[in-house]
């Protein structure tokens, strides 16, 4: 069974039902609407992003449905991103940002996790200045504030 998804910019994407249902949002919509041929509108997702999301869902269509566990420590859950996902996430930051938002909107937890882990991995191991460079962030601290914050967090340095 094929589902049609319409992006913000009105492009239609035909996907298999089981692929589409990797998105809990879409899955619920299908359940509510019933079997229908009318396309499902996704006004919050542009076609470029939707294309990527569909690519992800297609690759992972056979994955077991993830068990929701809010109390999980994200640090503990394996921090390794599998190779395909890694390549998949080699996108520019704007797209990375959009993917995360879309994964959240569409409620695709594994994709959201991968996106967030990707960002976290970018941050890890970097100094504040390096982080700023990567994300093009302006340092809006005064030197006094910076010094104060460093001092406040001295205790964490020795770990």
């Amino acid at each position, binding site marked *: 069974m094929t589902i049609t998804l319409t992006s913000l910019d009105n492009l239609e994407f035909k996907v298999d039902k089981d692929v589409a249902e990797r998105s809990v949002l879409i899955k619920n919509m299908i359940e509510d609407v019933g079997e229908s041929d009318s396309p499902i509108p996704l006004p919050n997702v542009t076609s470029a992003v939707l294309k990527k999301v569909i690519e992800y869902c297609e690759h992972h269509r056979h994955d077991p449905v993830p068990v929701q566990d809010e109390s999980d420590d994200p640090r503990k859950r394996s921090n390794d991103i599998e190779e395909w996902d890694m390549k998949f996430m080699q996108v520019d930051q*704007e797209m990375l940002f959009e993917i995360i938002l879309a994964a959240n909107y569409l409620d695709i937890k594994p994709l959201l996790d991968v996106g967030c882990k990707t960002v976290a991995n970018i*941050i890890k191991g970097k100094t504040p200045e390096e*982080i700023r460079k990567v994300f093009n962030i302006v*340092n809006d*601290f005064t030197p006094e504030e910076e010094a*104060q914050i460093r001092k406040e967090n001295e*205790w964490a340095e*020795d770990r």
Partner: protein
Amino acid sequence: ITSFDLPGSLFVMAISNTSSVFTSPSRSELSSVASAGTIAMVGEASLDKDSEAVAPATSVTESHARPESETNIVEECPSSQHCGQADSRPDNNPKPSTGSGSQQSGALIFANSSSILGPQTDILARLPYEMAIYILRHLDLKTLATCAGLVSRTWYRLANDNELWKGLYLHHKNWRVKTPTLTYTTSAALTTGAAGVTASTGLGSSVIPTTSLSDITAQATQATQTTQTTQTTQTQEGAQHNTNQEIENREAQDTRILRYDWKQLTRERTVLEQRWKSVPPKTRLLGHTDSVYCLQFDRTKIVTGSRDRTIKIWDAKTLQCTQTLHGHSQSVLCLQFNDKFLITGSSDNSVIVWDIATLQPISHLHGHMAGVLDVCFDDQYIVSCSKDTTIIVWDIHTTTHVVTLTGHRGPVNAVQLHKGQIASASGDGLVKLWDIGRRRCIRNFVGHERGLACVQFDGKTIVSGSNDNTIRIWDADTGVCIRILTGHDNLVRTLHFDRGIIVSGSYDYSVKVWDAATGERILNLDNGHSSWVFDVQFSMERIIRFVPATATRLYVLTPKAHRFLGESTTVSFLHCYH
């Protein structure tokens, strides 16, 4: 050995005997502790290193042609270093730095997680607050505290999110929070944004929400030094932050959930742990002319009893001996004090009750036929136990004899009193539970294979330490042995049990810290001891780790580097023996 329960302070003091000469802390040890106080400018150091590594490219390579029909999803960069290194202009054409092997295939090189390319954007700042936090939840403590929070004001707010730190804290193995007694401010105060929830937790000052950035520039003192009754300074900036504060305030109001400053808690816990692992003795209190057998301390003083027959009072801050009490004709083996009395037991078979304020003896209690090995008291009774196998209960107000409890078949080495019940530990290998009202032993705790040296009792649980090298945890009501803690290699000479944590000192030269609920050994303090640990005491907040070594010397370890250590390096040596 009685426990001195001081809500809000974690001291560990242990004493021992030995005739070996203690070597004073070496210069390098001293200096290594001192250096803990320097600010590690990690950020700058590595930045410099980095700049050296990446030389700016001399040639600019044009990005490969992209299919026109697609939007700008994927860009290429021939380099393997992070692009955009030289300047931070958002750029559609990434500036390549020195790289090896440009890949022609069209795929991005993803080296070191640092070569996300193309238009750079502050992802964290643009995402909804909760999602940014979710990303940060993947970071470890150090990155969160020392890097993420320093990037920008927005990142600072995110990195200091209270729930974020709550997760960090609670997911740390071994770290728990005991729900303390609460005092609430009025709901009026809460709704105005002043979350003045105070609590007498073990970690005193951590109950207040973090202050906002503006406080840093506004105040001279460190923002993290909170007082018990603070207000949160709600600034107008950072509406997001305010909203979360309001939500949290309402939560606290509605559900009476205690609001902790989780980052502060994490900080204190981390520092506590670091300090446990550090340093050899920093301070020596010299004065007794023979072995120190017992001690107790509170915030202002340390009281020691010695084989030299005297009791000495030391100022906890200056570490000077302020008083020496004479009264016993033989070694002082045990002592306990509170805000009214000091009670000491001796090899001279007697117990002396002193007025703690005047330090004058009030009463001499005679009754034992051999040395008094332990003593313990509360508002009603004084309990003493002796080598003569008996336990004597005295009325504290009249200092008269109430009852002599017999039953043990060996010296009674330790007693602890709790609400009319006594737990005793004897060389006969038994723990006995006695009821004073009924004047008899109501339960035996069988299990240890050799004599017992120490016991702790809080009404529900009994903890005992033995010559069989183990510590046993018992259910006081049923007599069942709940858990056996192994790990010591020699006699467990002393215990202190409080709020689910057991600290034990042993003749194997170590002090160990255990979680009573799980039996897990949390910490092992092995370094710095060169002799038997005779006495251990702790309470929950600061760490004074205390290492004893020689006959006359009491060592007060003070890992509280920022204050005490500075003073202690100039401690005066009062008296040197042989």
